[in-house]
Every structure is written in structure tokens, then in C-alpha cells.
């Protein structure tokens, strides 16, 4: 029964990982940007939420209403300036710049907020309580809510991409940047919107993680970035719902690992990631040139 509990836990955590991953999938799928600072941005969002909650006295559960738009705007600005300039100079530069950004953000957080971890909404019943299914299964309310949020966000993104004008432009820009210009669209603006979506969703992920676990300056790279990437890779690039599938597989693998030995949790996840990289490389090099 402990196994069933673990698997349910793993599946639900998949929702959290999907929130991490969908923005990464968008940015990589559309703009071919590997944003190494992706995880750190989630942490930044979490810290902004903490600030908004403690200093501006916004209720915990409404903090996202401020944080998400702020991060979205930040995403648009960063894309139009830093990331677009890097893209114009090639993949190498983009990796270097986003890596630099990651280091700067982490050390900036370290400098101003110390290395202590912080949680969000620690006292709230939603965050700390769980319900039971039968005698052996314990499910945290928070995980269910996060999973539900992930489903809503993914549905919303999917709808936006398939039905709206900008969604179409985003998909078109992913196919052919130059042809989109010929249709009158400024692809830099389209990319900006894509980045805004990515930053907004990862902000939700950061807040969620702050509630589920704790945030520290290094959480972005220790945890979030690699999990996000794992979810994208396992689920298959180019598919938004794939990030949920990838997140679920990752979560379940981790929980199974934890059942075997509590300290195997992270390792199990990484090994699954590496296995997919090795066994399913087709999913990763289909777009023409190899490394």
C-alpha cells in the first residue's frame, strides 16, 4: 500500500513539474533558447511572492495575482533585450548568457537574502494538511491543487496556442521566423510574448514549490532546472501535455526510488532522465544537425 501511496504522490508531483517545464518547452520549442536561468526565475518569483506577502500584506493565496504579471512583464523585457541579442549571436552565446544570468541571479539572491530557505504559506491549512483515502493513503491537499492548477494552465496555454492570433503567430514563428515577418509580424514581439508566457508559468511553479517545499537561492539550479528539463525531455519536445506526462514519469520514478531508499529519490529521477537521453535520442536530434 505504501507503494500505491508513493505512486499517487509521484503522479501528483508531476503537476508541479509540468508547471516548471511548460515554460521551458515553450521557449525551447519556439525560439530554440535553452534558458539555463529558468529555474532561478522560479525562485525569483517565489521571493517576490514572499515579499508581497510579508511586506505588502497580500494574502498568500492571492500573491500570484501580482507575481505572475510582474514576471510576465519581466520575461518580455528580458527577451526583447538580453535574450534576443544573444539569439542574434548564436547558440553558444545564448547558453553563455543564460548561464551567466543564472549565476548572477543566484548570487544576487544569496547576497541579499542569505542562504536560508524560506517557505510560503507555511501555516495555511491548504499547505499543511492532507486527506485520506482508505486507511493507508494520505494525499496532501496542496498537491491536488497544484496538479489542478497545472492542468488548467496547460489547457489555457494549449487553447491560446491553437485558437488565438498570437498563439498562431507563436507557432508560425517556431516554424519559420522569416516567413512570419513577410506576413507583417515582428517576430521579436512574438518571441517577447512567448517569453512572457514562459516566465509567468514558471512563476506559478516557483510559488507552488515554495508552498510544497522550501526556496533557497540555489533551489533554481539544484532542483527546478533539472526537473524541468527532465520533464520536457521525457515527455517529448514540442508537446505541452508531454510536459505533464514527463513530469508524472519523473515524479513516479522519484517516489519509487524513495521507497527503495529514502536517499535515492533524486538519483532515481536523474537516472530516468539519462536513460531517456541515451535510449530515445531521436526525440532530441530530429531537427536536423547534430551537436
Amino acid at each position, binding site marked *: 500500500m505504501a507503494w500505491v501511496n508513493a505512486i499517487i504522490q509521484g503522479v501528483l508531483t508531476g503537476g508541479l513539474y509540468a508547471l516548471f517545464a511548460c515554460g521551458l518547452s515553450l521557449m*525551447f520549442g519556439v525560439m*530554440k*533558447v*535553452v534558458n*539555463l536561468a529558468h529555474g532561478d526565475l522560479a525562485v525569483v518569483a517565489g521571493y517576490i511572492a514572499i515579499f508581497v506577502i510579508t511586506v505588502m500584506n497580500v494574502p498568500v493565496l492571492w500573491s500570484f495575482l501580482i507575481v505572475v504579471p510582474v514576471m510576465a512583464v519581466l520575461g518580455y523585457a528580458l527577451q526583447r533585450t*538580453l535574450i534576443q*541579442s*544573444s539569439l*542574434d*549571436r*548564436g*547558440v*553558444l*552565446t545564448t*547558453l*553563455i*548568457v543564460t*548561464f*551567466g*544570468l543564472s*549565476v*548572477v541571479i543566484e*548570487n*544576487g539572491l*544569496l*547576497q541579499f537574502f542569505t542562504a536560508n530557505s524560506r517557505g510560503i504559506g507555511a501555516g495555511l491549512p491548504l499547505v499543511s494538511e492532507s486527506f485520506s483515502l482508505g486507511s493507508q493513503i494520505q494525499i496532501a491537499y496542496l498537491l491536488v491543487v497544484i496538479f489542478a492548477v497545472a492542468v488548467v494552465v496547460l489547457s489555457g496555454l494549449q487553447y491560446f496556442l491553437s485558437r488565438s492570433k498570437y498563439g498562431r503567430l507563436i507557432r508560425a514563428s517556431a*516554424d*519559420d*521566423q*522569416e*516567413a*512570419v515577418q513577410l506576413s507583417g509580424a515582428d517576430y521579436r514581439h512574438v518571441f517577447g510574448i512567448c517569453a512572457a508566457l514562459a516566465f509567468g508559468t514558471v512563476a506559478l511553479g516557483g510559488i507552488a514549490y515554495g508552498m510544497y517545499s522550501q526556496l533557497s537561492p540555489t533551489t533554481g*539550479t539544484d532542483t527546478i*532546472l*533539472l526537473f524541468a*528539463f*527532465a520533464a520536457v*525531455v521525457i515527455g517529448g519536445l514540442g508537446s505541452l501535455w508531454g510536459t505533464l506526462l514527463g513530469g508524472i514519469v519523473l515524479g513516479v520514478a522519484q517516489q519509487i526510488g524513495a521507497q527503495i531508499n529514502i*536517499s535515492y529519490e*533524486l*538519483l532515481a529521477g*536523474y*537516472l530516468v*532522465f*539519462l536513460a531517456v*537521453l*541515451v535510449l530515445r*535520442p531521436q526525440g*532530441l*536530434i530530429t*531537427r536536423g*544537425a*547534430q*551537436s
Partner: protein
Amino acid sequence: MSLTTETSARPAAGFRVTRSQRNVVWTGAAALVVVVVLAFFPYFVYSGTTSILVQAFIVLTMASMWNLLAGYAGLVSVGQQAFVGLGAYFVLILAINGISPFAALPVAAIGSGVVALPLWWLVSRLRTGYFAIATWVLAATIMLIIERFSSIGGGTGMPLPGFSGFDPTLLTAYTYWAGLAVTVVTLLVIYLILRGRLGLVLTAIRDDEVAARSSGARVGLARMLVFLVAGAGCGAAGGVLAISQLQVQPSAVFSVQWTAEMAFATIIGGLGTIEGPIIGTAVYMVLQQTLASYNAWYLIILGLVAIAIALFARRGLWGLVDSRLNVRLFPVGFWLRLDGEANGRRSRTPRPRRPAKRGA
């Protein structure tokens, strides 16, 4: 309607191709002098200074490796800390079994190079972005695996045995010489590689990968060799790190901070040149020493400077110097000397080209 065609034929001038300018004799001699002077440091310099220099040696070695990877082979690895850690643990394991840590250094280097082989097999087919992430995951995985073994310290690490009975000043001196030796060997190896055939292939890849492939260059093989050498080099640096810290802690030796430092030093100094990492390391050390009391600031500033240079001065600080002075400390290029010209024309590090914005 007629057409004008121009045939501008100049008579073929006499020419020679040489490997270096006349001044190389002087720079070579100067380098030798520098190394000898550095070797004598422990005799007349405070141990505080030599410790700082050991740090510089470690960073310089790693930066040279990262330069080889990213600047020549086009491989952006964010997981070199895996080899730093492996090198440290090789030294630790051998020390536990009674071998002197200093003697263990070559083993650390070779061992790391050997481990690099299966790792290369795992990641070699991945495109640039995935390659970067894969190397990061590999590093994290290796750390987690090593942490499982309590006999080598588990998650908390353990002190490096084999130094009992060592006079502290002597230890500092030996550590310094070990660091100096590793650095000199590293730079020598890189110089020889780049001067030889592999270097030609690498420079071709650096300038234009597609052209390199279509000229028949064995790009895959060259990349693999670079990855192995980089693994060995970072392993050696990790060994020196272990010796200088007298202990091996997984979170310290496997920290992604090492990659950050070697990457930033290289970029600031100049990607794709041998001299670049040297300059970059110097900048890094200066920043670290002046800001040491301000904790994370030196990494913040280092990061910002690296971003700025990556965007606006892609050939780094050395690139800025190079274009003015037309000088090379390490003669790995080719000079074309036309008869009648006093100075040769040199093969230049090309200005990095912006990629064409074609659609799919």
C-alpha cells in the same frame, strides 16, 4: 548588348608560410623565465600569497580546458565540475590506500580522462543545448552516486589523509609546486595540441563547422579527444584542489560554481585563444581578492562582465589586445610572408559571425 568582364590577374608573388613571427623567440624565453621565477616563489613569498596563486593555477587549468571545449570544439559543458570532483576523489581514494596525494595527481588526471569516455558516449549525439543540460545532469548524478559511499566520506566528506608529519610550510610549497606543474603541463599540452593536426581541425571547427566537415576533417573524433583531454585536465585541477583544501567534500568539489568560474574566466579573457584564459584568470583573481570580503559579489560582477563581453566583445579582453597589437604569445597560427614585405600577414582569429536568420 555586351558585357564587361574583369580579369584582374596579378603575377603570383613569391611567398613563404611560417609558423611564427621573429618575436616568438623572445616570448618563448620570457615564458621560461616566468615559469622559473614562479617556481622560486615559495622561497621568498608569503604562504598566503602562494595559496592565492594555487587557486589561480586551479582556475587557469580549468579555464584552459573550458576554452578548449567551448572555444575550439563548440561544446558548451556546464558539467565540468563532474571531473573536478572525480579528480579530487581519485586523489582521496589513493591517499586512503597509502599513496601520496602528490603522486596521485597523474592518476587523477588519467582516471578522469578514462571516465570521460563512457560519458562522451552518453552525450555526444546531443545538440548544443541538450548537451549542456546533459553534462549538468551527469555531474549531479555522479555526485549523488559518490555520496552513497561512506568509506570515502559520504555526503559530508572527509579530510585528505597522507599529510601527517608534514611540515606546514613545506606542505604549502609542495602544493604550490603541484599546482604550478599541473598548470604548466596543461598549457604545454594545449599548445602542442593546437599546433598539431588536431589543432588544425579544432581551429577549423571553431571557425566554421560545416566547412570543416565538408573538408573531410574528423570532427567527431576531434571533439571526443577534446572532451577526454578536458576531463583529464579538470581532474588534475580537482586533485590539486583536494590537496590545497586538505579535505574532500562532495558539495564543494562537485559544485557548479567551478564551471561558472572557468566559463567566466575564459569568456572574459577571450574564447578561442590560448592567451584568453590566462588573462581571464588574472581578472578573476583580482576581482576575487578585492571583493573577497563581500562574499557573493565577485561572482555577480564576474557574471555580469562575462555577459557583457559575450554580447559586445566576443573575442574577450585578449581579442581587444590582439587586434591592436597583432601579437601572439603562443605561436599556433600561420603567417604568410610575401616577398618584399617586412612583416608577415597572419591567420587571424575571425570576428565571430552572426548566424543567418533563415527559417526552417
